[in-house]
């Protein structure tokens, strides 16, 4: 049968994705499917979302994947680790709802997450 030859139909190969919306400075919405287990930063980079630099590649060492998380989502995210808050000190215009997108791991719970991208990363 078709399902035997085409692995995407086999249960083991189903890739779970969540929809993540990035809102850029010009108020454009970019909604992309990001595979569970990846970070929101990786989702942005893989989909060429403008405004996420991620210079250090996810090492929580540069604060150039900074996003503002929509208020209703902010409290649903797992809490920040200490190091993240330290790095946010260096981000461009940090706010109460600031996060580093490399520290947010995509899961079913985050399906529909909306984040705003700051006007600059540095």
């Amino acid at each position, binding site marked *: 049968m078709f399902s035997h030859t085409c692995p995407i139909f086999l249960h083991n190969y189903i890739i779970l994705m969540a929809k993540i919306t990035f809102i850029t400075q010009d108020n454009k919405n970019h909604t992309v499917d990001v595979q569970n287990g990846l970070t929101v930063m990786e989702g942005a980079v893989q989909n060429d979302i403008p405004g996420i*630099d991620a*210079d250090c590649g996810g090492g929580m*060492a*540069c604060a150039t994947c900074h996003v503002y998380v929509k208020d209703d989502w902010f409290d649903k995210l797992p809490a920040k680790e200490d190091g993240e808050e330290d790095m946010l*000190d*260096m981000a461009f*215009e*940090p706010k109460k709802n600031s996060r580093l997108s490399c520290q947010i791991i995509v899961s079913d719970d985050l399906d529909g997450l909306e984040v705003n991208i700051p006007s*600059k990363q*540095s």
Partner: protein
Amino acid sequence: MNKTDALIIGAGPTGLFTAHQLKLIGLNCEIVDNLDKIGGQCIELYPDKPIYDIPAVPECTGEELTNNLINQIKPFDIKFHLSERVDEVKKEGENWIVKTNNDKKFSTPNVIIAGGVGSFEPRKFPVKECEKFENNSLFYSIRDKKIFEGKTVSIFGGGDSALDWAVELSKNSKVNLIHRRDDFRGAQATVDKVNELAKEGKINLYTKYQMSSIKGDNQIKSIDIKNDNNEIKNIKTDYVLGFFGLIMQLGPIANWGLNIDKKTIEVDTEKFETNQKGIYAVGDICNYPGKLKLILSGFHEGALAARACFKLARPNEKYRFEFTTSSKTIKERLGVKGD
């Protein structure tokens, strides 16, 4: 004019090991870096963080890795040019003429860019008008602390630089320390000292505040600071200091006629050469199909780029591959005894 077989831009792990490889095969080289110290991202971003994927080194910190690499090139006489940013790379005959921001000049057939994600520059205030006062009454580093004597200085930041300077300048100046949250990430002893000075009224502490605007004509007169609830305070100040750490900027590399895609330089995987003959890119800054941004990849790329340099530096000689375990010539270069 400094003449060399190869000029390495960037003194991070990849740059250091590339220098090792060049010297091993008998070429000389010099290293330029914009930072005032050796080690690149390892030393600037994560000196204390453990790294677990250096081959044959189960665990080491960024600082340990840097020190080990420095030790490895100790047998060689390699000249470092620190606090120098390469601004210009131009072809002149067979050679590249490389110029730094302090007007140091190099002539070399080979330029190896091991520049990480570019050069480290201070992170700046988001407020646009700050530019106007930069290096006049607003600074991101301090050259001469005497200018602050008897003046009011407003320091922004929550790390060691901000705290250390707040403590130091409070001796002879009126100091405001402004930080976006209550927690400071500096050393605990310094944080305690700052709190003590704040209690004594020697430092005015404004936490949960950030800069919202800056006022003045030629010199800063006052700043507005704003908290999360949009409450604004106006503070009179003569000077503003911002300590938000460093950020990597691709900077002048973008103007050297190289094929650049998303802040990385396209290279081949034989010589790690760019679209310009004699200019190579290795480490995090290079890009090719399958590129991994790992330190170990940088080592491999540097080793191959070094061999490619041989051809241009010694056009009349033939490069011969040798092992360090058996080559007498290499052992002589390393200053170790042969068998």
